[in-house]
């Protein structure tokens, strides 16, 4: 493959963790909750996948299963805090990230072998794989890459075409009215937060699978980039794919720059920081993008025991 092809091939692989996280965040924000704890959920997902691989004889599928389980647990805890107890979503999220960092770093000493890694199997799509030029790049990826695209389509369908999407839009824009119309705001948000956290944790599992072993503070802001991706994509699941790809390729640059010639002289630290700088540019670019009105604001039902 030519350097440019390698860049995009790698960019697609690196896109996937952020894509899963961003799709999860999209579902959550569309129900009126801002999950700043996304970074921590992703980190716990990656750690859980590492533990699963460690105790599952190196099988990444066991890792994926444990990661999904950890996503459900994180989702329940965060839903209780954000929704039931109505804690401030931003500070709770930040504290959850510190908790996740401390917990995974402390537990990794005992439960994860640094060198143990495992990948999702590659799948060359028959026929399409042999298209010259783009076949190697697009159709010779690991199975989670294809899965992420399918899930993006499903999330688009879920948020745009189903009763769940319609109700959650109401709940995220004007929950009081949704409540008067007979919706259970809390129950909808519980489902959204748990579902979103599962997707985010799967992203963490792919992050673990992409690289050789678990390291402390491994996510390095990928979860926070996913927060920006959702804003940039204006809560549209298909645009999320495009935005995630942009940041995937930006991350791939640091590994491929020396082969691309024209980027050979740029210091590697600048290339590592490039995705974060790109987020700032993207934020300016997406300045018209408006959060759903009730995002970040806890909701208290009119008739409630507490």
């Amino acid at each position, binding site marked *: 493959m030519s350097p440019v092809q390698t860049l995009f091939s790698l960019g697609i692989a690196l896109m996937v963790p952020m894509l899963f996280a961003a799709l999860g965040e999209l579902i959550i924000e569309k129900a009126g909750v801002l999950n*700043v704890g996304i970074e921590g959920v992703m980190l716990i997902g990656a750690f859980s996948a590492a533990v699963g691989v460690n105790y599952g004889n190196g099988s990444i599928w066991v890792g994926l299963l444990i990661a999904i389980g950890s996503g459900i647990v994180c989702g329940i805890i965060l839903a*209780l*805090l954000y929704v039931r*107890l109505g*804690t*401030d979503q*931003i*500070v*709770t999220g*930040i*504290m*959850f*990230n*510190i*908790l996740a*960092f*401390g*917990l995974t*770093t*402390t*537990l990794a*000493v*005992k439960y994860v072998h640094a060198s143990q890694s495992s990948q999702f199997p590659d799948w060359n799509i028959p026929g399409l794989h042999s298209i010259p030029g783009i076949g190697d790049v697009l159709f010779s990826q690991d199975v989670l890459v294809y899965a992420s695209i399918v899930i993006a389509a499903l999330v688009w369908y879920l948020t745009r075409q189903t009763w769940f999407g319609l109700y959650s839009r109401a709940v995220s*824009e*004007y*929950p*009081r*009215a949704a409540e008067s119309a007979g919706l259970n705001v809390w129950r909808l948000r519980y489902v959204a937060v748990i579902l979103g956290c599962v997707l985010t944790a799967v992203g963490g599992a792919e992050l673990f699978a992409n690289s050789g072993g678990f390291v*402390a*503070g491994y996510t*390095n*802001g990928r979860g*926070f*980039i996913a*927060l*920006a991706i959702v*804003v940039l994509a204006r809560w549209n699941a298909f645009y999320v794919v495009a935005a995630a790809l942009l940041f995937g390729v930006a991350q791939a640059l640091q590994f491929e720059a020396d082969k691309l010639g024209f980027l050979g002289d740029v*210091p590697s*630290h600048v290339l*590592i*920081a490039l995705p*974060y*700088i790109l*987020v*700032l540019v993207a*934020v*300016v670019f997406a*300045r018209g993008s408006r*959060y759903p*009105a*009730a995002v970040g*604001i*806890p909701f208290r039902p009119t008739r409630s025991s507490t």
Partner: protein
Amino acid sequence: VTAGSPALPPRHGLEERLRSLTVARGITVWSLLRVLAALAATLIIFAILLQLLGSDFGTAFNAVIDSAFGNSFNIGQTLMTASLLIATGLAAAIPFRAQLWNVGGEGQMWFGAFCTIGIALTLPKGLAPGLSVAILVIASMVAGAVWGLVPGILKATINANEVITSLMMTFIAIELGNWAIDGIWPQGASNETMSVPSNTLMPNIWSGTLVTWGLPLALIAAIVAWAVMSRTKLGFEIRAVGLNPQTARMNGMSVSKVAIVTFALGGAFAGLAGSIFILGINGALPAGFPLNNFGYLGIAVALVARLSPLWIIPSAVLFAGLRVGSDGLQASTGLSTTVGQILVAVFVILLLAFRLIRFSYPEVASR
């Protein structure tokens, strides 16, 4: 019908009675009980965690207390760590008061440290120590303010989500720090930057310990922040915007100005933490420093202090004790020093869950 006895006040339950018992200004027995419950729950979770990792609670608890407060040297270490947390706590507390979420104190501290080293290495060698320290402290506060201004201005002009932007600035600053360590000012074989010249180091003020001028500087910062917040027009505007931006705007205050000023102020305090770390504690920027998360922990410090600048001091000492205690924990049980961060996070999350830390929100209006 009207002559009947007036409706009796509702019968007070135990909770109601505890709620109404006031200990000090605004602090009720009920809230104290909830703090104790949060503390107890944190310790129980800690004990479970230690069981999982194969250590016992008593040994660990003694190790933490001993290495944090066991002798004057250890107390000194705790106080110096506390001075960092006071500064990063202020960096969070001031914008939070205006309901602006500066969660990038970590990055503002890093950029302050980065500039401190860069300028310290270029200052003339013959400069008087006091003067060079003063220049560097001011420079790093300006650097932190600049780093904080980016999310502040983006918030004020295009209403960009300051959580995202301040976090991105953090990752950029950390990468700058890594660059300083292995590219710009590397120190031979050891994994840190060059040490700053000795005439730029903060003088020691407590013999037998490593306490330097960093501690009084942090205390002064807390007092200045308190004075600004409670004794000036600016502080009033910050608090007014935090309570209700709409009302503040209708009373002629500029919400944009408050966003820019609070982020600059917060950044300056975080920058101070950077210079205290370099000039008052370590003398160089080591690799692996981000594991300490002092900037993020400042948020926890500020929240536990309920965003009040003076309460940040005891809150910082508490968390610094935990941080320094974790070193002792590592020595005696082999646990990672990050275990202290678990405790801090669990404690603050429980305080949030028990509604001991609360924020007010406007009801979402129909558009």
